[in-house]
């Protein structure tokens, strides 16, 4: 598949994900039982839209310049960042569990598990982006 087709397919998938996310946020807001979840979903969606905008603009620029959108180095960065983000977020999940247990012991009213999960997903995404940016600057470790 040539680079243009691949890029068009990528933009279509990104647009579909964002549209689905927007529908979900709107639906969650209209149900109105859980404001915190709606706010968190909207924040995650806005972050995704911002990242998508940057990535698509960069991709368009690269497409015009004749360079491939990704190559073996960028794939290696993604793989390494995904690996690190997965393991670091497991520790994050463990820490969240401890915090949850301590707060529960002290009879502090806690948000439902779905909201903790959203925080976990947001943290995992943030770790992935941060590690990708770091490896991109410092070089892929051998």
């Amino acid at each position, binding site marked *: 598949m040539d680079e243009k087709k691949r890029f068009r397919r990528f933009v279509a998938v990104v647009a579909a994900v964002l549209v689905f996310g927007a529908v979900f946020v709107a639906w969650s807001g209209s149900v109105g039982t859980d404001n915190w979840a709606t706010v968190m979903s909207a924040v995650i969606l806005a972050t995704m839209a911002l990242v998508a905008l940057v990535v698509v603009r960069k991709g368009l620029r*690269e497409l015009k310049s*004749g360079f491939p959108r990704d190559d*073996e*180095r*960028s794939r290696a960065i993604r793989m390494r960042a995904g690996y690190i983000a997965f393991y670091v977020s497991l520790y994050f999940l463990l820490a969240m569990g401890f915090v949850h247990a301590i707060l529960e012991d002290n009879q502090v009213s806690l948000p439902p598990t779905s909201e903790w999960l959203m925080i976990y997903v947001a943290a995992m995404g943030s770790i992935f982006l941060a590690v990708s940016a770091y490896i*991109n600057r410092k*070089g*892929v470790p*051998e």
Partner: protein
Amino acid sequence: MKTRIKELRARYDLTQDDLARKIGVRRETILFIENGKYVPSLKLAHDIAKVLKTTMDELFIFEKG
């Protein structure tokens, strides 16, 4: 790892952009290989050596340790 890519590029009057386009990678990949911050795959190393009309042995210098 050290490379002689920069030296050979200069010999054939190729910029990093030219070399990247010829082998179908991003310009940053060439930059990072030249600076020893990325070790290319066997195929990419072979492609670079081919474009620069040399061998992989001549192109990459691996240091012990």
